[in-house]
């Protein structure tokens, strides 16, 4: 068995030559350049239009994946937040001494195992919670606003919520406990909807990319038919021929994918500035943060964009391979 004596014999140098533009490859040291000329010339494969289309598809895929990721992160933070708290509500009607009842219920809750903090909200605090809907009006003080007790629970050893609920009902009249399950379920439902929407968009982007690659593969095969015939004559099998084409499409996919992903990363970085430029102020920023958490992509989000690039490049390669096999079958 002959040993590899020349660095040009390594397949990755050929791949490097496929990924980098020809002008850039020419600047590399000679040992890093693929030795033989390309059997299927790059120029005959696809023009800049396909690169731009795939870059745009990758950009959209990264924006979608990053957006869904941010919403998911934010929703998870909400769920974690509200899952560590329960709210006890005291009906003010038929409760002549509501402050005393607040104290008694708070003391009762504080004694329960698994509860780390009990915070009774004042009447003003409760009224403030209604201000977004009713406005800041003096009439609020005249309304029988339910009194609330915020209870933090120990998530490592949570209390038996059902037991506390039963005990509260038995010992205190007009006291109810909300463990926020309905909200958690709704947040999860929103997150799932966003994820499904994102998957649908990614599916459409993938389908459009596949269609573009299939079309480009067919036209590349048609314009290189003479080369394919010669390769057949010299004994090349279908795998070799498809390899000559898929290498180009892999390189194209990596180049275009990186362009799209970098553009998406820049878009995520500029998102907060874009809001200011569009006239958004502190309130817009706060609302965005409420929806998207920090409004910035973390390292996990950027890794997701990198995965999108790998998937796009793989999609280009596999689609072109299958396209070549299909066309070769039709030639046969």
């Amino acid at each position: 068995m002959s040993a590899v004596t020349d660095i040009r014999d390594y397949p990755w140098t050929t791949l490097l030559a496929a990924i980098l533009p020809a002008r850039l490859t020419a600047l590399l040291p000679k040992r890093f350049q693929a030795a033989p000329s390309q059997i299927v010339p790059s120029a005959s494969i696809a023009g800049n239009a396909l690169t731009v289309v795939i870059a745009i598809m990758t950009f959209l895929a990264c924006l979608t994946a990053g957006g869904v990721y941010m919403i998911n992160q934010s929703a998870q933070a909400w769920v974690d937040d509200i899952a560590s708290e329960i709210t006890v509500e005291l009906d003010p009607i038929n409760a002549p001494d509501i402050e005393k009842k607040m104290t008694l219920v708070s003391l009762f809750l504080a004694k329960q195992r698994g509860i780390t903090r009990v915070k009774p909200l004042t009447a003003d605090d409760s009224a403030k919670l209604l201000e977004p809907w009713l406005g800041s009006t003096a009439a609020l003080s005249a309304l029988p606003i339910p009194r609330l007790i915020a209870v933090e629970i120990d998530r490592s050893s949570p209390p038996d919520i059902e037991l506390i609920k039963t005990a509260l009902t038995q010992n205190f009249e007009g006291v109810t406990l909300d463990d926020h399950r309905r909200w958690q379920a709704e947040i999860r439902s929103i997150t799932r909807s966003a994820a499904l929407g994102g998957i649908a968009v990614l599916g459409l982007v993938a389908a459009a990319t596949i269609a573009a690659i299939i079309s480009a593969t067919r036209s590349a095969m048609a314009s290189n038919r003479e080369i394919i015939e010669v390769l057949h004559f010299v004994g090349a099998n279908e795998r070799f021929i498809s390899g000559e084409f898929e290498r180009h499409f892999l390189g194209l996919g990596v180049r275009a994918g990186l362009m799209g992903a970098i553009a998406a990363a820049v878009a995520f970085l500029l998102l907060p500035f874009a809001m200011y430029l569009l006239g958004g102020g502190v309130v817009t920023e706060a609302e965005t943060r409420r929806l998207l958490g920090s409004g910035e992509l973390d390292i996990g989000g950027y890794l997701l964009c990198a995965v999108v690039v790998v998937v796009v490049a793989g999609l280009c390669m596999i689609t072109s391979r299958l396209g070549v096999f299909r066309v070769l079958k039709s030639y046969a």
Partner: protein
Amino acid sequence: MIRFDNVGLRYGSGPEILRDVTFHVLPGSFHFLTGPSGAGKTSLLRLLFMSLRPTRGLIFVFGENVADLPRNGRAALRRRIGIVFQDFRLLDHLTTWENVALPLRVMGRRESDYAEDVTDLLRWVGLGDRINAYPEILSGGEKQRAAIARAVIGRPELLLADEPTGNVDPAIGNRLLRLFVELNRLGTSVIIATHDYALMDQLEAPRLMLLDGQLQVSTP
């Protein structure tokens, strides 16, 4: 090595180009394939090379029934055959050297293993100073020699050549014939399709004569 049994060929619904063609090519043999223009020489070569399927009859190449072979099986057999086309079929974006090295590259051999062989062969066919030239600047004769070099570089077991001396002067033609004879001595079976009786007269080899789609074998 090659066996044709009652092979017939027609294109579409046209008349039969080849009718009841039956012959054997033994290992190490040398044949001329001749006949008037349009007699079906190129079609017969294409059948030998498995780039056409017969409309009837059986073809065995290296003992394999071509009809039963999968596509990649045919590719494996083609690696054992060298072919020279009348229209050369050189790739214009590759240099002469790269065109000649193509069969070895397709076989997966390393450039460092075959570089010297390719250069030596190009020198032998008189293209030593055209190694880095692209086909579009080569003359017809030079292209012919490059195509022949490409066909023989992989030491094929069977060499098929369609009018290999049609574009070269007699001196180069004789030199190329010597190359074919030398290959034949080394064990390669050779079939040369030609109109050139002067070329055929230089060698005592059986002639496969195509007339009206039928094959007659004559021995000088």
